[in-house]
Structure formats: C-alpha cells, structure tokens
C-alpha cells in the first residue's frame, strides 16, 4: 500500500498548477468565477478557454502524443482532475469530444476521420454532442427509433433525440441510429454517424430542468443528411462502437468524486459558519453526528475509487467493480446536498440572491435529482453490478 505520488507525478502536478495559475481567466483564482449568462457569449468564452488549454498542451492529456496529447498515465489524469477541481476550473465545453469521441476515433476511426476531426476537437473549433437517448429509449437504448436510410450516395436521418448535453452549442453529433431491425436481437442494426449539426434538417430545443437550468436539448432530425464517410466503425455495428467509447471514459467518475469531496468540505465549512440564534451549527450534536457519517461515506467512496484504480492500473483496464463508483457518488451527492439545504432550517428554502448561505446548495440539491437518472439510472446501475460483478442471473426484461 502506497499513497505517495512519484517524482514524475509530482512534477506533472506542479507543471499543471503553475500553468493554471498563469492562464486561468483573470481573477478566477481569487473567486471571480462568473461565466456569461448569454448562450453565445458563454460558448465563446469556453471555446477560448479550451483553445488556451490546447495551446498549453492541456486539452487532452490522455491522448497519444502523435494526436496532440501527452500520453498521460491514469495517475496523471487523476492529478489533472484533482487540480481542476481544486481551482474550480471553467467547464470543458468539448468534454464529449475530448473524453469520448476523440479516443474512440483514435481507436477505431479511419485515417481520414482522424485527420478531419481530431485537431478540431482539441482546439475547440468543433464542439461535439452525443445523440443517444430518445423519448422512448432511456434506460433501454436499444429501443431507439431514429432511422438512417441509405438514399443514393448519402443517408437520410429522421427521428428525435433527448438529453443531448451541449446540443445547443455543438457543431457535430455522435449519433446512434437504427439502420436495420432485429426484433429478437435489438442490439443489432444500430449505426453510429458523425452528423453535422449545422444543416437544415437538424433543429435543437432546450429542455428546461427542474432547477431552471437548460443543460440539455432535444434534437429533431428531419431528413438530416450524412454520408458513408461519417459512419464510425461499420454499418449495423454501432453497439460495439458504443462499448468501445464507454471504455475510454475512464476517469470521469474520478472527477465526480473529487468534486463530491470538495462539496463535503464546503458543507463542513457551511456548518462552521452558518449560525442559528447566534450559535454555529457545527456545535449541534446531531449535525456533528451526521457530518461524521458523511465523512465516512465520502472517504470510503474515494478510497474505493483508488482501490479500483489500482486494479485498473495493474490489469490495464477497468474491472466491472468500477460500476460501484458511479452508483455511490450520485446517491451520496444527493444525500449530501439535501443535508446541506436541510441544516439551514426553513431558511434553506430561500434561493438565489436571498439565500442565507451560498445559493449553490439549493442548486446542487435540485441538480442532484438528475444525477441518479442520467448516464444510467441507479436501478440500471444496480442491475449491472448484480449481473456483472456478482454474477447474478440477468433481469427478465432483457
């Protein structure tokens, strides 16, 4: 057992930290972290930030050097996330391009595709979104109904996607479509297209969430066009592409866990600073007990992540156990943000400018409801753990 970092890793951390201190937007480290409300302006600022990362060589550290990455080790990726959480860095607008589409293309894309897309992903010139979920295909993606039909030398795509994050700013979409029907084997007949978002057949509409944010979009396709060259992998073999892509999303949960730890530390600070009748909450025995309880759970989740990471490093690929991390972090996040609102008493219902403490707690609480649903509901996660980790028999629904 060894929790220390190697000299190389420490050097990497120092290098990144120094770069961030020099390059983060002005005032950012001191707490001036407001991003523009206006969507175009917001997108412009974040594209600029991504380009800055690219120029510094920090846009896609896990990519091979030949494609503009640093060939970073898993541990370096972890350090990268830790540092980004530490400085509360601006969001990565091309998260999907950098962490999902890019690595997948590097893995199974054609030379032309690599040539055409990779550089623009890095620079932020082309922002990517994913077209997965549909109104009738949520937990069960195989229920998708968006169809791509060959029409001469191009494909015509018709259908609707929902929960497309970055859909409103994206230039390209990593799109799951049905190209043939196999009622008994619904995983077959799916094809992945890289669809241009800027064409007459594509329309996006924002989804208003319960927390008032609009992080996701509906995407409507009416005779949208793509070509054979836009297909990732083979026709009808999209499910394999999807699995390859998921394997590349190897450290996203780490970032979520570091954020969770940060939220927990902020909760402790809240309890130390928020006073009721002039007395800090932290002196309340029930609050103390609950903080101790959360401490165990948060530390336990983080340590468990390190345990799985060790296995991943040793085996060269993540084991099924990593599915536990996603379940734990989302449910814990929900409980923690509810607690942070709850300890503010009835005044916890005050919002935005009137919030008695940082209004982020109320926002986090509402946003937490999406986390146990998005990217696979907790119910689906439990099925996965039961079947893949424990070897229990498959659910009858599939």
């Amino acid at each position, binding site marked *: 057992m060894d929790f220390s970092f190697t000299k190389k890793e420490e050097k990497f951390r120092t290098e990144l930290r120094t770069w961030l201190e020099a390059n983060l937007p002005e005032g950012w480290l001191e707490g001036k972290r407001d991003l523009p409300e206006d969507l175009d302006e917001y997108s412009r600022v974040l594209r600029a930030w991504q380009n800055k990362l690219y120029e510094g060589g920090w846009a896609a550290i896990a990519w091979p050097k030949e494609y503009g990455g640093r060939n970073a080790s898993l541990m370096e990726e972890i350090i990268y996330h830790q540092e980004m959480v530490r400085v509360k860095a601006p969001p990565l607008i091309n998260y999907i391009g950098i962490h999902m589409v890019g690595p997948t293309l590097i893995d199974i894309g054609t030379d032309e595709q690599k040539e055409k897309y990779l550089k623009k992903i890095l620079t932020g010139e082309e922002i990517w979104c994913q077209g997965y979920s549909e109104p009738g295909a949520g937990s069960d993606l195989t229920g998708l109904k968006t169809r791509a039909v060959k029409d001469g030398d191009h494909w015509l795509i018709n259908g609707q996607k929902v929960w497309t994050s970055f859909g409103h700013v994206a230039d390209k979409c990593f799109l799951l479509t049905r190209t043939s029907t196999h009622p008994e084997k619904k995983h077959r007949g799916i094809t992945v297209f890289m669809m241009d978002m800027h064409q007459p057949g594509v329309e996006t509409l924002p989804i208003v*969430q319960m927390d008032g944010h609009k992080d996701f979009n509906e995407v409507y396709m009416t005779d949208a066009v793509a070509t054979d060259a836009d297909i990732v992998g083979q026709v009808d073999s999209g499910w394999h592409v999807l699995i390859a892509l998921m394997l590349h999303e190897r450290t996203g949960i780490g970032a979520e866990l570091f954020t969770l730890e940060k939220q927990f530390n902020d909760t402790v600070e809240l309890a130390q600073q928020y006073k009721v*009748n002039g007395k800090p909450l932290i002196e309340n025995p029930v609050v103390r007990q609950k903080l101790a309880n959360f401490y165990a759970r948060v530390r336990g989740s983080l340590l468990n992540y390190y345990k799985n990471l060790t296995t991943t490093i040793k085996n060269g690929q993540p084991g099924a156990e990593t599915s536990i991390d996603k379940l734990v972090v989302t449910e814990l996040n929900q409980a923690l943000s509810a607690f942070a609102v*709850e300890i503010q008493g*009835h*005044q916890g*219902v005050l919002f935005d400018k*009137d919030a*008695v403490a940082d209004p982020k707690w109320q926002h986090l609480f509402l946003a937490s409801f999406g986390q146990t*649903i998005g990217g696979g509901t907790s119910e689906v996660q439990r099925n996965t753990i039961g079947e893949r980790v424990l070897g229990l028999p498959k659910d009858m629904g599939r």
Partner: protein
Amino acid sequence: MDFSLTEEQEMFRGHIRKMLDKFGGTQLAREMIDNNPQNLKKVYTTLAELGCGGINIPEEYDGMDLDALDLVPTFEEMGRSLVPGLFMETSALVVPILKKYGTEQQKQQYLPNIASGEKLVSFAALEPFNDFSPAGIQCTLVRQDGQYVLNGTKTLVPEVELADAFLVLVRTNQTDQEDGLSLVLIDKTKGINIEKQSSFDESKHVAKIEFNNLVIKEDQIIGEVDKGWTQLQEGLLYFNAALSSYIVGAMESVVNMATEYAKIREQFGQAIGRFQAIKHSIVNMKVNLEIARSLSHYANWVVDTDELDREAAVYSARTYATEKFIEVSAHNVQIHGGIGFTEEIDCHLYVKRARYYDQYLGSTPFYQEKVVASLGW
C-alpha cells in the same frame, strides 16, 4: 367504531376537486411561478362561495361551526393540486387562536370577514438567521407613552401580496424566554416595509417584512401579553393537523402520478411497473401515504377533543407527513426518469413544496420533543 369521513364530507370533497380540476389543478401553482394570481384569486372566491372559509367559525360570526375534520376534504384537495395562498394560515392558525383568545371585538372584526373570504391573514414568525423558537424571536414590541411600538424584521412571510393582515409573533419581555412573547394582529398598512424574497419553491411566494417604529394599539394584541408562545401552541395544533391533510393530498397525487406512469412507460419491452425495483418503490410510497392519511384523519378528529394524546397525535401526523412527503416526491422523480427532471412534468413542484413545508413553523426534532413531552415521558 367508524374511522372514515362521512358521506357529506366525501361529497364536499367531490365539489372542491371538480372546481380545482376546472382550473387545471397544479396549473394554479404554475401561474404563481409566473406571478399571475388571477385564477388563484378566482379559486379563493369560489372556495368562499362554497363556504370553506366559515367551516370552523361559530354561527354568530357567520360561520358553520363545524369541526377540524370538516376542513379535511378541502385541505386534502388543495394539497392534491398544491394550491398556494393563505387559506391554511387563516383558517387553521388564526381562526383557532382568535376563537380561543380573541376579545369579542377582535372576533367581530375578523371572523365574519374570514368566513366570507374577504380577509386572508399571513403569519410572520421566523426571523433572519434565527430558528422557530422563543429564543429566535427578537422583534420587539415596547410600551411607550401609552401605546406600543414594533421594531424588527421577519423573514419568509408567506404570500404577502394576498394578505389583508398579519399575525405577528413578537417579543414583549426581554427577561423571560418562553413567556415573554406576544401575538399581534396587524392589518396591511403602508408602514410595513415589504421586500419579496426569492423562493426555492417558486409557486409559494415569500417576503421579508420590516417594522420600523410601527405603532400598535393595545387591542391589536391577542390574548394575554407575554403569553403569546403558549397561545400559539394551541393554534399550531390546528395548523399542523391541517398541514398534515394538505400534505396527504399532495402525497396521494404523487403516488398516483408514479403508479400511472409505471403502468404505461415501457423500457426493455416491459411496463416499468413490472420491475420490482420500481414496483416496490411505489408500494413503499403507497404504504407511507396510507399511514400518513390515517395519522392525519385521527389528528383532525382528536384536535377538537380533549383526549390525552391530542398533542402527540397531531404532531406525529405532522412529522410523519413532512418526512414522507420529501421521500415520496423524490422517489417520484426517480421513477419518472429523465422526464421527471424537467420543468414540464409536475414532479418537481411536489419536491419543492415538500422541502418548503418540511421545517415550516418548526422542524421534525422540534415536534418530536413535543410528542414525547406531551406524553409525560
């Protein structure tokens, strides 16, 4: 033994439900998010026409002189559609306090107008960074030259724009914590500085109000000076019985939403209600609803008696309801999946209201201690 509402009470429920459905149910709450109280005001007028405002008011003040139990259908139906407004504060807090502690003049002045629906009263108790406890009340009412002067700030006062008057909890004696408070009834006047606050539950409007040397006449004080906290407890019994009914109505709506959605939504080739994870989650919601309903019906019966478990029953009904409302409304989002996380579907309205009422006028530990103490343990 007959532990059920009467046929008349159930018939009355039918009228209320029909009326609220006509206004689109939760649409009323949604209109308040957009600061549009037109339909809500119409609903209140109709409620008055149906006689709701006078149900628990004595006949001599133009009421029907019925019991808390007769208000249950109204509160449950309002909860079902999350109707905002001050009906609960007025009928279940102010009226019981006035009936028990008000002077004849105060009753004459307020009760007939409340019965007719012309007067709605809000309750100003909580103060910034304080809790709902005697120690948390620091707004001062001081006797000066034969009159009283009020100073201080109240936070999270509900639905100020709909209020015709405020019941205000104030400190009249600095030396004693519990027995140094008083209740005053103040008609809305320009002398009160009102500042709208941003609410987590946008369909429930709240405001900060400031009193700056506001002059109060002696006859605005309800009951005995310095005994306001004790008097308030009597009002809180009725209020919490009513609140538990309102929440039971809301929970029923949530359980229905989840059940119906689980029957029609298909994934993996099955209605999701067929999966035990979903099915058992909804069953737990249903069990919590039924227990909450039973506690609440009993609470509304016992509050008008002098049974030994009067306090324990009412506060148990309240704490059970607020706690389980949070739980079932959260599960409802999860069962709906992605769509449950949007503003489009009603799920979030219930989540937010559950949070709103959770610690309104007292937290769960506050009431649990009251339960245990009232039983002499």
